[in-house]
């Protein structure tokens, strides 16, 4: 039976989004299966269905990968093609897992999964230690500025639950991570298969004094994952009711991208630069005093200015950067390579513009972190630092400071495909 979650508990729960990445054999599916199974989030009919399929294929045990690999091609080929989203909850938190494949188009999928994650769960096989893939995952977690990283050293049962093995890997990883831009790293020795330190404390590793994986997931502090300092409100949609009752109503609807806005605050409107005050922050439930990320609200201003989608409401003493020239770390997702001097549609917060790729500074080898300035052909799954010029100025922050106002995507003008995604430096 699932642990009953009371209504009071439900009203206090928050949401943690995390990403997992891994290859076929590092036990990722087993771990996800274990988290879902132990939190009673797998239903009986789902379990029966995958058990039946596993048996039919002559596999040993129940293959939890079948839970997430839902597409026909994935089931036929035994591979994961795309990011799959899984859900589970405990009385403390609701979790959204973006489960990304380790091999096929790994950069594209990992970057996608990482873009909204609060936490990255990286698996290391205790027998093999840090491998290329570990570095790849860690680099992407750092590039996408995932605030928390949990390193699960898995398959501890196959190394006799050895403390030395664990410490060595931890040391190696810490040395490697010093080259990355990550702040909050946790290590847990686990056996996903046997269940050690996943939900319950392991009896086999008394030397480990840290928390179980589930405890970490439930308790990692996510309250400051959003930028609460720089007030940013990209206008998404203008609400004009055209009803007698709301004759002069002109509301700027959007989702707060940073900082905390309060009624009565002096604000500046971009690009015009006019200043006014917030008359009211409106929602369906009525007025609210404060709006902060990731709230969706409607702002009403004291003076009547013509503000439209793509404009931004900020504080006068804390304005974003404003430029047509951007330095960007770009991840490329398409078969057709990035073209220098090529023109693309650029999407940033709620605005669109055109842009031209001025220069490719270097290509990043994500396995070695080497910067390649000689070979700058940027193809599918490559990551490169580029210089972009836009047709109109964008109001942005560096991605490190704000993931919402610091991110862009590039779209092909002809096919409308999303070609790449970038983090503004």
């Amino acid at each position, binding site marked *: 039976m699932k642990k009953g979650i009371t209504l009071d508990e439900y009203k206090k729960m928050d949401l943690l989004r995390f990403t997992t990445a891994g290859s076929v054999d590092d036990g990722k599916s087993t771990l996800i299966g274990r988290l879902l199974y132990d939190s009673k989030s797998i239903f*009986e009919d789902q379990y029966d269905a995958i058990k039946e399929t596993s048996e039919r294929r002559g596999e040993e045990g129940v293959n939890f990968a079948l839970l997430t690999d839902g597409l026909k091609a994935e089931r036929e080929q035994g591979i994961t093609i795309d990011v799959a989203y899984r859900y589970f909850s405990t009385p403390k938190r609701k979790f959204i897992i973006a489960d990304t494949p380790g091999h096929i188009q790994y950069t594209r999928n990992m970057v996608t999964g990482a873009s909204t994650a609060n936490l990255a769960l990286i698996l290391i096989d205790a027998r093999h230690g840090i491998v290329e893939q570990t570095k790849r995952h860690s680099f992407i977690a750092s590039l996408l500025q995932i605030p928390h990283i949990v390193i699960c050293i898995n398959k501890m049962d196959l190394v006799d639950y050895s403390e030395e093995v664990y410490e060595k890997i931890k040391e190696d990883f810490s040395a490697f991570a010093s080259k990355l831009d990550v702040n909050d790293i946790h290590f847990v020795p686990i056996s996903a298969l046997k269940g050690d330190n996943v939900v319950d404390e392991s009896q086999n590793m008394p030397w480990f004094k840290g928390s179980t994986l589930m405890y970490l997931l439930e308790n990692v502090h996510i309250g400051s994952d959003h930028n*609460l300092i720089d007030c940013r409100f990209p206008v998404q949609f203008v609400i004009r009711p055209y009803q007698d009752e709301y004759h002069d109503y002109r509301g700027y609807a959007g989702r707060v991208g940073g900082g905390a806005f309060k009624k009565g605050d002096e604000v500046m409107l971009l690009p015009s630069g006019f200043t006014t005050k917030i008359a009211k922050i409106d*929602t369906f439930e009525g007025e609210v005093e404060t709006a902060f990320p990731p709230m969706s609200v409607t702002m009403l201003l004291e003076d009547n200015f013509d503000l439209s989608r793509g404009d931004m409401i900020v504080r006068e003493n804390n304005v974003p950067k404003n430029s047509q020239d951007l330095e960007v770390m770009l991840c490329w997702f398409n078969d057709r390579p990035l073209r220098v001097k090529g023109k693309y549609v650029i*999407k940033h917060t709620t605005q669109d513009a055109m842009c031209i790729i001025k220069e490719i500074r270097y290509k990043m080898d994500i396995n070695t972190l080497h910067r390649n300035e000689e070979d700058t052909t940027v193809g599918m799954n490559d990551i490169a630092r580029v210089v972009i010029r836009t047709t109109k100025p964008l109001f942005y922050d560096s991605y490190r400071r704000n993931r919402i106002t610091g991110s862009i995507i590039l779209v092909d003008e002809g096919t409308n495909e999303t070609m790449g995604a970038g983090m503004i430096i």
Partner: protein
Amino acid sequence: MKYHLTHLKELEAESIFIFREVAAQFERPVLMFSGGKDSILMTHLARKAFFPAKVPFPLLHVDTGHNFPEAIEYRDRLVTDLGVKLMVGSVQDAIDSGMVVEETGVNASRNGLQIATLLEALEVHKFDAAMGGARRDEEKARAKERFFSHRDEFGQWDPKNQRPELWNIFNGNKNMGEHFRVFPISNWTELDVWQYMLIEGIELPSLYFAHQRECFVRDGVILAKNEFVEMKPTEKAEMMTVRFRTMGDMTCTGATLSEADTLEKIVQEVATTRITERGGRSDDKRSETAMEDRKKKGYF
């Protein structure tokens, strides 16, 4: 906890963002309304997104003609309440005009026939974004859906070639004749939906609450006895206390034995149940990838 949202408020904020994004990026959006709890949640969130203005798009109901009468009554009341336009695409009309052929036999269902009617309605009215209440936790093929899901000129879904979706940036750019399916409540689970209904005090059709009904059992699924289903000689109808967890055609929507006659009891029941909600849908039981097969053709 000062600047902190509960998970339900965060999900709500995300869905509202998606609704506003659709209104901003598309010319002729439409909300697909089935009368089920997920589409009821959708109308509720859409109302919040545009308040105090009215919801700026019509509702489209693909009517198989095999609906529960309670669902239709509820639909009509809701439409009046919201002050939006309701459009109905009729599967019966499609059958009568010879566009589709009705299945026959005891397991006959009009579920698959909805695809043609839906695609025709989208084409006739030139809708460029059709919003649906599908959730990723419902079914394994839906676990891979995007919020903004691109469809080619034939309305088809290509799951292997979807546009990557990052951060809060949604690419709704398209060519003439193509459209999008948009799923604002992708990240909600069944339990989230029920908890939200309870907290928000949202009224729901009576079918969702435990009631007495004449039912029979087929392949382990409890079906309501009704004029649209042909019963086999071996099948026997009897009175049961049931409720419905999903709402589809009377021909394929299974009931569950339940005593839950209030939202509180339903929340409790959903929190402790061990069977997925679509476990009672015989349309999903046709094959292991029944949902993906239908989705590729344009099912929502």
